[in-house]
């Protein structure tokens, strides 16, 4: 990891902090994820552009696949 400093407007900072809190991640992780979305992917690994293509807002979405696909028990 390389440490760096960036300057944000107060509005950008507040909005970014609020979004990070909503997702349950740090501000640094939010900025890293945003950069990954923005930057071109590795041309040798075209599948990586699908990484993070959706955002369910749920931390355990992958653990509830059966529930989503097959439904809850009555």
């Amino acid at each position, binding site marked *: 990891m390389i440490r760096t400093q960036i300057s944000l407007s107060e509005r950008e900072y507040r909005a970014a902090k609020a979004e990070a809190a909503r997702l349950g991640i740090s501000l640094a992780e939010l900025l890293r994820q945003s950069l990954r979305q923005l930057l071109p992917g590795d041309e040798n690994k075209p599948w990586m552009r699908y*990484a993070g293509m959706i955002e369910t807002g749920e931390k355990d*979405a*992958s653990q509830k696949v059966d529930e989503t*696909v097959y439904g809850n028990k009555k």
Partner: protein
Amino acid sequence: MPARKSTKPSTATRNEAYVDTSAFIAFADRSDSYHALFRRLFSDPPRLITTPLVVAEGHGWFLKRYDTARGLQFLSMIEAIPVGIVSVGEREQQAASVLIRRYSDQDLTLTDAVGLHLMAVRRTRICWSTDFHLGLTKVPLVIHT
């Protein structure tokens, strides 16, 4: 569903990983708590295998949560990922049924059971999944390693 690539049990390698639906979802969903792990794993994958049942389950998940467009995007993702799609026929289905009966106290799906069967016959040593059902036969889940 026709198999894209088929690999015989005798060609199994020790580094092969079986990929369950949940791993594909965690890779695609940036809010999932295992997203960072699977992003890292898929960025430098070993030999990967999955089944048409997993693909169908993942596609169904996208149709249920989103729409046709997202479902197609999921299929494009599967086509892009270097994963071997192992054919599933009557023999695999019957073996999976045996496992479902053996673990009848669990809500094991046919997709899960076929995955467990394939990992056993191919001696697959690691399973990419966040679903505890895939750990029933003691193949380590990558989230615990």
